[in-house]
């Protein structure tokens, strides 16, 4: 009895091992990042439809949580067991290109194909004149505000400058009852970006013209002081360094904060989780000179150099970037359209929320294309946390961090 049980287990194990190790001719493995509960089903459907239309091609989708995507890619590539296609953060692309693991796609791209894309979103994936990735997800940031709280506090219009934002936050925080003016993110992914909104409005860039860190400049320090003042005057939620982006969004959904800056997908979440919340979307506040900036993000899907089935992989890419497939994905996840035809659809044209985002695109900054960007972002976030906690003065922390970053950039 016992031995039969063991035998079953062993044979089951062996047959499973056999199944997974034999790669069929025409197998295309695709690593995709899981953006929401809808990501998996979307790609499963795409796989099914594509395989039906292309007999002999076997698509294998591997859905990976975002937080561990870079780790998986790192270990995979190191061991040579990476997939054929993968979604990556476009900000990582330079490392992939430098280490020669990404395949340039120009041999496949026809003028018609290239023409499908909105230029702003395709360009971050182009390096040294070669296209290494296709923008599969694109997003920008804008300011959400709670209309009900604005009304209660007697504010008629969303603030256009940081001074107005401070005034509005004062009025909203004065309402009391666990309601705060401005939701400030202080933890985990994009903590640095949340600060750049203020920094860009001071006319400072992440890297200046000479390629040095802008963090030590007067404008950058002034921006940090704006946030520090908001915290000190209790115009933000308390304990900012324990709030990740998701935590701040949750506060907004509960109607506990007046304003926050985040991506279009919050609209989708509100629709499902807090349908009664009255909110609006407006531009990110400007600085004294009228400068302002939003963060543009694209994720790219890339092909690996060591792929054995590049033709089939390209076919699948071509299919993913047809207008209908794009629309289904973008609308489900709450991203911005990257496809020109798609952008003309009613869904986007008549959508006030999305318009606020697309209007900001001319002022969008993408993460600078430098190796070691993740380390720079990490250092910046660390410095900001020290400032928010009041451990170190803004000018001291930022100047020291600028030095460190310049050291990293020199390598």
């Amino acid at each position, binding site marked *: 009895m016992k031995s039969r049980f063991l035998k079953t287990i062993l044979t089951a194990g062996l047959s499973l091992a056999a199944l997974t*190790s034999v790669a069929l001719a025409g197998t295309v493995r695709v690593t995709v990042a899981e953006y929401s509960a809808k990501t*998996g089903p979307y790609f499963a459907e795409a796989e099914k439809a594509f395989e039906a239309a292309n007999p002999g091609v076997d698509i294998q989708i591997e859905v990976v949580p975002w937080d561990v995507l870079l780790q998986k890619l790192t270990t995979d590539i190191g061991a040579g067991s990476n997939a054929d296609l993968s979604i990556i953060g476009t900000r990582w692309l330079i490392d992939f290109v430098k280490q020669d693991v990404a395949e340039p796609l120009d041999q496949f791209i026809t003028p018609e194909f290239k023409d499908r894309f909105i230029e702003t979103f395709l360009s971050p994936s182009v390096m040294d004149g070669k296209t290494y990735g296709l923008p599969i997800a694109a997003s920008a940031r804008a300011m959400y505000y709670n209309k009900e709280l604005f009304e209660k506090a007697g504010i008629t219009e969303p603030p256009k400058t940081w001074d107005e934002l401070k005034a509005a936050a004062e009025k909203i925080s004065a309402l009391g009852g666990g309601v705060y003016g401005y939701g400030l993110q202080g933890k985990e992914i994009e903590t640095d970006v949340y600060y750049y909104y203020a920094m860009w409005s001071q006319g400072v860039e992440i890297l200046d013209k000479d390629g040095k860190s802008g963090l030590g400049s007067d404008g950058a320090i002034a921006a940090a002081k704006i946030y520090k003042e908001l915290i000190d005057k209790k115009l933000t939620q308390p304990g900012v360094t324990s709030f990740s982006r998701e935590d701040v969004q949750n506060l907004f959904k509960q109607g506990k904060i007046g304003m926050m800056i985040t991506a279009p997908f919050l609209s989708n979440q509100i629709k499902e989780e807090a349908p009664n919340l009255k909110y609006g979307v407006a531009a990110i506040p400007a600085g004294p000179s009228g400068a302002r900036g939003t963060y543009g993000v694209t994720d790219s899907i890339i092909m690996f150099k060591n792929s054995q089935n590049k033709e089939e992989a390209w076919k699948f890419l071509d299919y993913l970037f047809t207008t209908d497939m794009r629309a289904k994905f973008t609308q489900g996840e709450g991203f911005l359209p990257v496809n020109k035809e798609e952008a003309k659809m009613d869904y986007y044209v008549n959508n006030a929320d999305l318009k606020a985002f697309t209007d900001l695109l001319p002022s969008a900054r993408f993460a600078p294309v430098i190796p070691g960007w993740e380390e720079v972002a990490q250092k910046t976030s660390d410095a900001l946390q020290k400032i928010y906690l009041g451990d170190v003065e803004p000018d001291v922390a930022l100047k020291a961090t600028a030095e460190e970053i310049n050291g990293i950039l020199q390598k």
Partner: protein
Amino acid sequence: MSKLKRSIIAWALLSPLVVLSLFPFAVMFITAVKPQAEVLNPTWWPSEIRWQNFIDMWTVTNFGRALFNSLYTSLIATIGAILISIPAAYALSRFRFRGRGAFNQFLLISQMLSPIVLVVGLFRLIAALGLVDNVPTVGVIYMAFNIAFTVWMLQSYFATIPKDLEEAAWMEGASRGQTLIKVFLPLVTPAIAVTAIFTFINAWNEFVIALTLLRRQESYTLPIQVFSLVAGRYTVEWHHVMAATLVATIPVAILFAWLQRYLVRGLSLGAVK
């Protein structure tokens, strides 16, 4: 002191720890049964108890598949580790041989290497063998990581069993193998059971190896499946996460309740007299 009085004192002393131990479960349960609109509200009194969340969770999170994978890997790890450890523990407790001390130290050192520390190297090994995203492989790795502990536990237990019984059997002409199976093993079943439970729990809850080695959702084990609902998504459906965690915990909790006395007895290395 009367038993009643003793009971009151005992419970009073234990109460802080009891509250702290139950707190996470209370949070899991309350969040799991909240209607979605109330999940973000930290109230302890939801407006209604929504059992439907558990049913939704099952399909939304692909729970059945992950449950199967978890059972599969944990059973491979448990059965394998026990089968391999019994002879080694027997050798350590019944034979004096050169290198015995060295083998013991080898085991202790292998205990110190945790998966997170080894993960880079381990992945290269598995990838070189072409076994990434293979569920049984993960089971075998759990087996390897548990061997030190199982050999150790079994050995200290085996050492407490007097040799007389076995020697008596030899006198009657039984072979060493026969003695082992007929006399020795029945005596040590409690220790084997307890050691098996330890291994099972370790494998059931293991995270880092599964996270690194498993690729497709179909091969995820429960901890990874639940983690994937939380990690880096733009929005987290907390009621599903909590429901899944709770359900994933139940098998182990039942195992504990059922074997609780056994567990302690098996660990009492000198219990059998």
